[in-house]
C-alpha cells in the first residue's frame, strides 16, 4: 500500500471525491474542479488512465449504475484498500505541512 504514495493530484482527488460517495467519470471531474477552486482540471485521458490504474490496484471498484439513470455512465466506488491509501496520504501530507509551516515560522521568527 505504501508504494502508492505519494499520490498524484489526479489520483488524490479521484479518491477523495469517491471517499464521500460513488460517482461517474464526469462527476469526478466536476467535483475535483469545485473542490480545488478551479485549479485542478482532470482531462478525459488522464481520468481514464487513472481510473484504470486504480481499478487494477483494487483501490476503487465498479459500482452498480442506479435504475433510471444513463446506463452508459459507469459508476465507481472507493474500496477499503482505497480508503486506507487515501487516509495514509492525508497523514503524510499533514506531516509535510507541519514541518514546512514550522520552518517558515522559525525563519520569520
Amino acid at each position, binding site marked *: 500500500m505504501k508504494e502508492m504514495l505519494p499520490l498524484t*493530484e*489526479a489520483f488524490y482527488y479521484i479518491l477523495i471525491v469517491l471517499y464521500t460517495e460513488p460517482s461517474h467519470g*464526469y462527476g469526478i471531474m466536476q467535483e475535483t474542479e469545485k473542490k480545488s477552486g478551479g485549479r485542478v482540471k*482532470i482531462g*478525459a*485521458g*488522464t481520468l481514464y*488512465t487513472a481510473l484504470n490504474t486504480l481499478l487494477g490496484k483494487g483501490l476503487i471498484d465498479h459500482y452498480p449504475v442506479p435504475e433510471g439513470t444513463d446506463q*452508459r455512465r*459507469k459508476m465507481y466506488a472507493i474500496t477499503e484498500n482505497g480508503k486506507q491509501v487515501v487516509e495514509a496520504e492525508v497523514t503524510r501530507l499533514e506531516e509535510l505541512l507541519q514541518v514546512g509551516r514550522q520552518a517558515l515560522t522559525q525563519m520569520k521568527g
Partner: protein
Amino acid sequence: MDDKLIKRRRLIMSWNYEKEEQWLNDLSREGLHFKKAGKFSSSFFARDESVRYTYRLDYQTGQARGSAKFQEYVDLYQGAGWEYVSSYGSLWHYFRREWQPGEEPQLYTDRESLIQFYKRLQRVMGIMLLANLVLMLTNMINLRSFFTDRLWAVGVPLIVLYLCLFAVLGYGLWRMQKKVKGLKL
C-alpha cells in the same frame, strides 16, 4: 451543410501527432471538419462554416473497436464533453469538442498520464521493431539464394527497405524517449 466528404492526404508520423491535431484544428477553423480516417494517410472532411471544433488524438492499446472496453472508453470521454469522431486502426482515436475562445482543452492534464501515453506509443514501436527484426532474419535464412544469386536484384533492396523501416521506428522511439525525459524531473 454539405454532406459530401472531402478527401485530403497528409502523411504524419505518429510521434508528430500534435502536428496532426494542429492541422485538423486549422482546417476546422476554415470550415473543414475531420470526419473519418482513411487508409494510406488519407482523411475525410465535411464542410460546415457555422461551427468550429478543437480536435484531440488519443492513443490506446488493448481495446479492440466494438469491444465492451472500447465502448466504456468512448462513453467516459463523451461524458466529459468529447465527441468521438473516428479511429485509425484500434490504436489512434479522434475526439472533438466545440471550440471555445481562450480555451485549449487537453485530454492529458498531468505529467504522469502523459508519460504513460508516450510509453504506450513507444511500446508498440518497440514491438514492431523487434517483430520486423525477427522477420528480416528469418527472411534472410529462408531466402539465402537471393543473397547469393540475386543479391542486387532482391537481396540489397530488401536490406535497404528493412534499414529504412528500422530507421523510422528507431527515430520514433528516440523522439518519444526525448518527450518522456522532458517531462521527468
